[in-house]
């Protein structure tokens, strides 16, 4: 009995501590009326209004979707492109947890957090696009498994992958709450989550491409081949890493007070290393594109207007950034890498939109152009994601190693700043 009281009261005290801590953390911080906040708040509000009409009067009341274009900006950009950009998470955890390349460890948490939020928000945007969203649980609870459907696979992988990423990130949450035992427990699950997550990512990144395999007669032949899944998978590597480089640039400015010295210290090395991987992945991708092109004997398509558009995408936004990345790696130039990342990201946006929207049904009588409302909702979703990201980065140990831990258990890391985390 004495044992019981002894174990309950610390637990209670712990609970009280965590809840009062949470109450304090939930309060907003910093200035509220910044231009960024005002603009994004307007976008989010407008999104809410538009979504009200969308759910009350149907998709047709706010979008330009039609019978020839069942999927528009919300699927083509938010989901198909957004998930490609979230691919950085699986590549970086592969580098750090599987290849044990310690130099990338400082960016693991922020990348995983970014990936996780991207899935929550952009894959979540899928629900906005569903005509009968109340039936979305059907393929989940198992009363109707359409196992022959690529979309079924993709949907399940989205859900499982979000879980895997949450587990990968969860030690940061436990640390933030000061729950040391929980953190240790969660950290033991990391490698398992990482391995599951990478396998799932390989499948659903390519699966997003496989979605379009049956649309053979609807996609302009330059963008259709039976290799779309592989092309999507390979391009998700440099799409994700370009996003990591790009996002790192912004985070470094906005959240510099939250980042540890080692984070700043290792930025250059990391960016240069990632540039090299991007250059390699883009080279593989270009090679694949060339093979597919020759295999499909698409020469005749090159002369038409679509041909120049295709060349613009692949030369201007793949080959050029590929060369820039290679240069950035050779000259160890971070600014060059940033430019390359921006170009590469534009290329990925172009590619995903070409497959899903722009080169879709090129002969349709009425071509689809998104309404301004579709753009607003897309921007609103991005704004909401940035808010959550900022909230978390401003509170949890994302851009620095866990402080409590680093000081109490591993004093070694103080002695040697290049050792980013001696112990975990």
């Amino acid at each position, binding site marked *: 009995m004495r044992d019981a009281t002894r174990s309950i009261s610390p637990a209670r005290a712990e609970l009280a501590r965590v809840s009062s801590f949470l109450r304090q953390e939930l309060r907003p911080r910093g200035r509220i009326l910044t231009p960024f906040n005002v603009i994004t708040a307007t976008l989010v509000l407008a999104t809410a209004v538009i979504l009200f009409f969308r759910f009350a009067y*149907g998709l047709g009341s706010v979008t330009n979707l039609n019978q020839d274009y069942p999927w528009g900006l919300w699927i083509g950009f938010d989901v198909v492109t957004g998930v490609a950009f979230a691919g950085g998470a699986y590549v970086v955890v592969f580098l750090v947890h599987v290849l044990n390349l310690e130099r990338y460890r400082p960016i693991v948490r922020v990348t995983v957090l970014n990936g996780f939020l991207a899935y929550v928000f952009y894959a979540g945007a899928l629900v906005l696009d569903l005509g009968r969203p109340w039936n979305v649980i059907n393929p989940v609870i198992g009363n109707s498994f359409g196992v022959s459907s690529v979309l079924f696979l993709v949907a399940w992988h989205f859900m499982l992958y979000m879980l895997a990423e949450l587990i990968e990130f969860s030690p940061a949450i436990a640390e933030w709450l000061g729950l040391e035992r929980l953190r240790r427990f969660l950290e033991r699950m990391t490698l398992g989550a990482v391995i599951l997550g990478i396998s799932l990512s390989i499948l659903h990144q390519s699966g997003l491409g496989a979605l379009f395999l049956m649309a053979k007669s609807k996609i302009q032949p330059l963008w259709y081949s039976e290799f779309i899944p592989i092309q999507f998978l390979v391009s998700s590597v440099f799409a994700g890493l370009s996003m990591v480089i790009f996002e790192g640039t912004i985070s470094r400015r906005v959240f510099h007070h939250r980042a540890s010295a080692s984070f700043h210290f290792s930025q250059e090395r990391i960016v240069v290393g990632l540039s090299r991987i991007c250059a390699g992945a883009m080279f593989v991708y270009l090679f694949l594109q060339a093979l597919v092109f020759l295999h499909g004997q698409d020469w005749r398509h090159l002369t038409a207007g679509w041909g120049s558009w295709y060349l613009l995408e692949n030369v201007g936004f793949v080959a050029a950034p590929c060369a820039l990345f290679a240069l950035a790696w050779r000259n160890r130039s971070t600014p060059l890498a940033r430019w390359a990342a921006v170009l590469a990201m534009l290329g990925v946006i172009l590619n995903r939109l070409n497959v899903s929207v722009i080169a879709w049904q090129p002969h349709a009588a009425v071509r689809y152009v998104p309404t301004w409302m579709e753009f607003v909702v897309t921007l609103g979703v991005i704004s909401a994601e940035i808010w959550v990201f900022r909230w978390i980065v401003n509170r949890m140990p994302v851009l620095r190693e866990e402080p409590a831990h680093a000081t109490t258990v591993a004093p070694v890391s103080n002695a040697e700043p290049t050792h980013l985390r001696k*112990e975990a």
Partner: protein
Amino acid sequence: MTTAPGQGRSACDRRGFLRALGVCGAGLALSPAALAQAQAEGNPYGVLVDTTQCVGCRTCTRVCAEGHGLPVPEDVCRERTTERQLTVVDGRAVADPRVDTGAVFVKRQCLHCLQPACASACLTRAMYKHDAGPVTWDKGKCMGCRYCMVSCPFDMPKFEYHSAAPHIRKCDLCADRLAAGELPRCVAGCEAGALTFGRRADLLLEARKRIATEKDAYHAHIFGEREAGGTSWLYLAAVPFDKLGFPGDLEYVSYPNLTKEFLYGVPVVLTLVPPLLLGIAKATHRDTLPATGGRRA
């Protein structure tokens, strides 16, 4: 152009005979035992559309709308179905000596593919191919993702963009009537003998017979025999089908086949990749960690 059933019958005895054959055949075939047999044999029901017989009266579009609780469509020819009109009659001007009227009428609707792209795309099995032939849609299951529309090579599923509880609409081959032993509404309503209902294998035989016996009247091709891996609706025409607005770039293999390899690859990746990753993780793990704590984050 007006409906002329009597005229049609007198003009060609074969038509009357065929209609009798079709109706009798259907009547017989639709007994529950025969239905079960059709399912067991994988020989679904279907409809043979003989465009050389269609007079363009559009009765089928009216009875279809009435039967499905949709507004009776305007009495005009249309190229494409809509979410309000599940079947249309497409009138095509054709300059060809085999077409003496200069016009060919093509009834269009979902073709009820043998291996439908739409059903294999559907992640909730709301689009579903019944063994008896029809591909139907279930509103209790559909989540409105519209992947069926993305996948159908004939662009048949249509979505109600202006509804808060939208349906996917397309021809359902009157599955309710088939189950009750009745003909699909359009077939029952067609007085010109352009539509013949029956088992697909029988319809193919019949189509071949028509092509063989009236070489001048038909272009020697049965649309739907192999297109998209075979469809339950089959078409005959006097001229090549690309002249009648049929898609010319169709696969002869079924569309679900296009994603088969990818789906086969999934279990392979899921069984091979994790152990591989684990192996690499172990192999590259350098023991730089202090002895005090766990292994890695």
